[in-house]
């Protein structure tokens, strides 16, 4: 091979990354730019790619509710808090009960083990839309509409199978010899789970928790159906609410979008090394 071919090849490949970077960042930068624009600049032709009079007004209206003129941005801070509460609760519950189930499925053989594993994967794939009617019947007869608990429970329909599936993949990688050694030292099943399997699987648990949190944060359909008051909505529903009957509050929607995207994006970037193992283990995200 000629000595100059390698750098040349690297140069051309590097040029190829430019359109990819453009495709990834152009929409995000546009969203950021819009979130810092005044309404006048937003609706100007030709387009101001970078706001000439950048403003924090769109964010302030959302963060300090009493500044906002209409009720939608005023309730956005509440929606963000609701999202944090609900996604955290779902994550904690799923990790606790899901890890018990995943351990059993990986290590204790019994009659329906295999059937349950297949059932877990299959139920993960059923869309929310096709479960909604009975869930709505129950939720409304128990007067749970607009209560956070109804979202926490219904989010389990996709979050729990997902948790079990992912943790099963991680627990499988724990060497059986370690468990046998612990057993000889007098550990029972629960001791093995909590003192051997869980500590070794901490990266897997972190990865799973992050994915479940992102899934719950992302959820839109149940939240749309089960909440009707401003105080009960989650961030995705609040963003959709910016689309009014007659006009769209673009400023609010863009600033709200950035705020709603920050927690999952930051989480994913911080835990980026867990992402690929998680993607391959779970391999589904809504």
């Amino acid at each position, binding site marked *: 091979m000629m000595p100059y071919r390698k750098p040349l090849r690297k140069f051309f490949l590097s040029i190829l*990354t430019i359109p990819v*970077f453009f495709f*990834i960042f152009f*929409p*995000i930068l*546009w*969203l950021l730019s819009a979130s810092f624009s005044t309404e006048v600049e*937003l*609706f100007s*032709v*030709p387009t101001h*790619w970078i706001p000439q009079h950048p403003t924090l007004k769109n964010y302030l209206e959302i963060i300090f509710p009493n500044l906002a003129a209409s009720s939608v941005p005023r309730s956005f801070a509440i929606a963000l808090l609701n999202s944090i509460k609900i996604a955290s609760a779902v994550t904690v519950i799923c990790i606790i009960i899901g890890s*018990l189930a995943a351990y*059993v*499925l*990986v*290590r204790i*053989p*019994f009659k329906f*083990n295999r059937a349950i594993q*297949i059932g877990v*994967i*299959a*139920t993960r*794939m*059923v*869309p*929310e839309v*096709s*479960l*909604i*009617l*009975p869930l*709505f019947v129950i939720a*409304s007869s128990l007067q749970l509409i607009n209560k956070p608990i109804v979202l926490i*429970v219904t989010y*389990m*329909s996709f979050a729990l199978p997902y948790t079990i599936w992912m943790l099963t993949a991680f627990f499988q990688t724990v060497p059986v010899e370690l468990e046998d050694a612990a*057993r000889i030292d007098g550990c029972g*099943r629960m001791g093995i789970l909590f003192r051997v399997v869980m500590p070794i699987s901490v990266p897997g648990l972190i990865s799973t928790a992050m994915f479940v949190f*992102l899934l719950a944060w992302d959820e*839109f359909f149940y939240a749309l*159906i089960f909440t009707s008051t401003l105080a009960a909505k989650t*961030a*995705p529903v609040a*963003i*959709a609410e910016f689309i009014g009957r007659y006009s769209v509050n*673009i400023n609010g*929607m*863009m600033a709200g*979008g950035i705020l709603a*995207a920050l927690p*999952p*994006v930051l989480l*994913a*970037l911080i835990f980026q090394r867990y992402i690929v193992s998680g*993607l*391959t283990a779970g391999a*589904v*995200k809504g």
Partner: protein
Amino acid sequence: MTLPSRHLPKGRFSLRQQEVRLAWLLIAPSLLVILGVTLWPIIYTFILSFFNLPQGINQARIFVGLGNYIEMIQDQTFWATIGRTMYFTVFSVSLELVLGLAIAQLIHSHPWGWKVLRFSLIIPWAVPTIVNGAMWRWIYSADFGALNALLMQLGLIKHYIPWLTLPNAAMNLVILADVWHMMPFVALILQAALATLPEELEEAAAVDGANALQRFWSIRLPLLRPAILVALIARTVDAFRVFDIVYIITASGPASKTLTITYLTYLNTFPWGKQGIGAALSFLISFFTLTMAFIFIRFLYRPEETLQ
């Protein structure tokens, strides 16, 4: 599986029974939740699909037998909706796979900034679906959107185009938004898989005179098959049930040109108040999804391997 003997065995059989009892105890909370929020709703939906509920969900039910199913399949909208859902699924998933594979290869060839590129791919994927939709809705805006501004400044269009009102463009624009969101997912999976492939095979093939295309087609692609299959299945399952992104970008318009099967189910169940039809559609979707799931499991997943 062999259980190690203990000091005071009440016989191996009862020890095994203890294990099984413990297994059920540990798995019970999860089973109860899954039964309650997934299996029971599927069955109950199936029952409801044989009734009309003219007074609302909690009111009197009128048994109509297969009436809802017959009404459903006689409706032109239903078939058009299935066609559109297929269109969305096929095109978004294949674009995501092709672009994702191309970008994974690009990263794998380590150009300048490949680590930055890999890191950047996480961002679109982590952006919530609704935020992604809101962002693209504004990009496509007829009067002030970035797409119009960009094409205009590049001299590709002479006047602004109301993209989302074009019947033939709307679905493709929703697909583009989905590709931006989920292509990185495919690229990250495939890039991770590429990084684990042994290089010796391709080097040996190169020595034997195989060109780059032959090496890609006959060595790399077959080795990537499991990862591609994982990405393909995950994306297909998700694309088939697309709802959020349609809701926020087009709300199924213009003139139902982006109406998908889950959206039709939602419209029947809630805004239109035709819960019977909604239940029939829901059950159909569950049935179809579960069938797909079992086919996929046969391809991908062999549970006997998981027990030690």
